[in-house]
């Protein structure tokens, strides 16, 4: 009797020990998936793929990037949030996580994730056609103010997207009604910029790196960047505050996160790894070549950052009438 109990206890503890080692020491023992809520070829996809290839080298298991597009980012973001929190499904969370729940598209917000690392932020810019009559952001704002509402049109992303908020927030901060320049929705920065050159719209408030090709081609000029500092890749483009005195900054950001409840040991392994990748020459070179801004925030700061951005974006969206709640 006693022996049997002992045996049972021993085998039970053996099982516990076995499963425990499996959970502790083994991650990662199989391929990891990184979900990207945006299409192949976009900026989010590009940054995810370089991160994945560098992670693969460090971790020794395949790291696959999977694009789950559609629904203005809702589909991919919810796929990350609802994945099993075992460390084998991670994702890239983007600025839209702080916008789509205000727009009433989903209930998801930043609380549904285990934040790991914020790695990129790109401020909005103010782009016009190269032959446009305005040479500074101040002249542009004056022209908007002195002409009737609707004279000028702007584009760069979908209705209620991040660059739409950038424009509306800028107008509001300059003391104008936020819809004085109507927004023409587009499928992204590239189609918006093409429409700018074709004469379909007058202003595109996407990030400056997104317009780099057309700026280099002499088709488009960038008047200001909505950040507190200039972009080192574009040192001649002043900040909005330098150019106009209007205090308004806004940017799109990207970070790595997992579903809520990621095991602590996975977080402890991943965060230093991501920091190492972030500091590596390969990652920095890649980001610099594309003109992507580099920023680093670890889990706690990243969570705080998301909460803060969520609140400020909600405020702008309410002011614009784009928020449901």
């Amino acid at each position, binding site marked *: 009797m006693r022996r049997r109990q002992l045996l049972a206890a021993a085998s039970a503890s053996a099982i516990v020990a076995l499963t425990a080692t499996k959970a502790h020491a083994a991650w990662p023992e199989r391929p990891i998936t990184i979900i990207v809520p945006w*299409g*192949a*070829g*976009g900026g989010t*996809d*590009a940054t995810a*793929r*370089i991160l*994945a*290839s560098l992670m693969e080298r460090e971790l020794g298991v395949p790291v696959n*990037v*999977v*694009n*789950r*597009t*559609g*629904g*203005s980012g*809702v*589909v991919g973001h*919810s*796929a990350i949030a609802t994945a099993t929190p075992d460390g084998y499904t991670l994702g890239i969370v983007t600025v839209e996580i702080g916008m789509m729940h205000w*727009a009433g*598209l*989903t209930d998801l917000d930043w609380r549904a994730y285990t934040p790991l690392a914020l790695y990129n932020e790109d401020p909005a810019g103010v782009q016009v056609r190269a032959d446009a009559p305005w040479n500074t952001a101040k002249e542009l704002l004056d022209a908007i103010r002195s002409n009737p509402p*609707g004279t000028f*049109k702007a*584009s760069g992303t*979908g*209705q*209620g*997207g991040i660059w739409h908020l950038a424009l509306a927030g800028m107008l509001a901060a300059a003391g104008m009604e936020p819809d004085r320049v*109507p*927004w*023409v*929705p*587009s*499928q992204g920065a*590239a*189609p918006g*910029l*093409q*429409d700018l*050159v*074709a*004469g*379909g*719209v007058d202003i595109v408030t996407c990030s400056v790196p997104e317009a*780099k*090709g*057309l700026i*280099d*081609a*002499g*088709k488009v000029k960038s008047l200001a960047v909505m950040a507190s500092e200039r972009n080192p890749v574009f040192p001649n483009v002043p900040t909005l505050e330098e150019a106009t005195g209007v205090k308004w900054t806004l940017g799109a950001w990207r970070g790595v996160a997992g579903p809520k409840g990621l095991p602590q040991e996975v977080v402890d392994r991943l965060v230093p790894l991501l920091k190492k990748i972030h500091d590596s020459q*390969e990652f920095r070179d*890649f980001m610099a*070549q*594309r*003109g992507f801004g580099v920023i680093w925030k670890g889990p706690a700061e990243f969570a705080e950052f998301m909460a803060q951005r969520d609140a400020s974006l909600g405020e702008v969206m309410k002011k614009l009438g784009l928020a449901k709640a």
Partner: protein
Amino acid sequence: MDTILTALSYALAPSTLVVVFFASLFGLFVGAMPGLTATLATALLVPVTFFMEPVPALAAIVSATAMAIFAGDLPGALLRIPGTPASAAYVDDAYRLTLKGQAELALGAGLVFSVIGGLVGALVLVIAAPLLAEIALSFSSFEYFWLSLLGLSCAVFVATGKPVKGAVSLLLGLFISTIGIDVAAGYPRFTFGITELMGGVSFIPAMIGMFALSEVLRWAVGHRRAGVLVQQRIGNIFRGQLGLLRRYPLGLIRGSLLGTAIGILPGAGADVAAWVSYAVSKRFSREPEKFGTGHVEGIVEAGAANNGALGGAWVPALVFGIPGDSVTAIVIGVLYMKGMDPGPTVMLERPELLYAVFSTFFLANLLMLPFGWLAIKCFRRVLHVPREVLMPAILLLCMVGAFAINNTVFGVGIMLVLGVLAFFMEESGFPVAPAILGIVLGPLVEENFITSMIKAEGHVLAFFERPIAAGLGILTILVWAMTVRRALRPEPQIAVSAG
């Protein structure tokens, strides 16, 4: 001249050739797998290209995409599963040729005219890139609205059978394209609160379901019209191609150039090019009634067009950093990484690199002849497989393809639902091709209409204010008027099997 020689030395360097060789094999495999597209092939290549020199990196993408677009014809012709969306336009003709025992003609035409279309696209890229990019860039939503509407009128031509049934099918496709978050206002439609539906009905599972699954179903219910493969072997695929070349020289030139032009326009790629060329081919054909019944003419023209579009799409991407299609959207990223920032200056600053990339276009398209021949040799083995084994395998392939595009079971659901729908449509004489066209073009029409209306503040006449838009608008109205007139006029009855 020095530049050209340097460029050739880059393009023909052993390292580049090895890369081109393996990228071609990879592209053939991806293209032949339903659900895996040329875009996906490019995305998968990007991490590999991080560690390459600029020329091999871009050569890898060029050769993989060219092969993938051709290889999409293989399962299309043999199994009625378009391997990539670019093969969807003429899949019926190719498959019916196989049923008639003329698989070598369908596959050979797909191969030979893909090569010619690809070469024309590359030639245009080399000669006129800066000029054409300039023109493409002057198109705004007004012009695109008319163009997409013109594309919709292609439905009349791609449909077989009664025009009114074609129209119903087109409207069904347009309805399906409205599901999801709408392109302009960001409001969810017909989603019933299902997150997955917010992304809309993905085109690829829809296409696989409507073409391939419906064919499996037809076989399963033992219908007499179900495809019975009479052919057990494929003869020389190159035989008869010279004859085709002599018979359809105009179609070939038209397809190659039109395909290249559509590729140059941002936002439309190889798939739209194939549809439009197929419709144009039927419109100007001397035997339009044969289209859709296993006629090679449409394959010649549209097969050239989709490969031409590949080269064309690089034009705005290289000159302005504006992607011509989804493949070049990724290419732009690679260009930046390799220090070849897109812009007119890339032609001045690094001409030798650029011309080396252009050379690989020619190289890849010429390599397609032997590689494609080998691929057909391997792929034809499916014809030896008994139908009882093949059909379940096709069903499995449909599932994998529908799953692969977004890695979601939801895609499999879309494929199954639309496949069953297409089965009943075809059984009742409704052609499926117009529905597919509606799914492809619906979002383009809607988006360009809404954005134009926002810009014009609701004034409809603004659609005729810009000169190019006015011209396209008048052309569209003329085409529509002619179509209506023809539909109203009693026409001689042509017996065309729609199933």
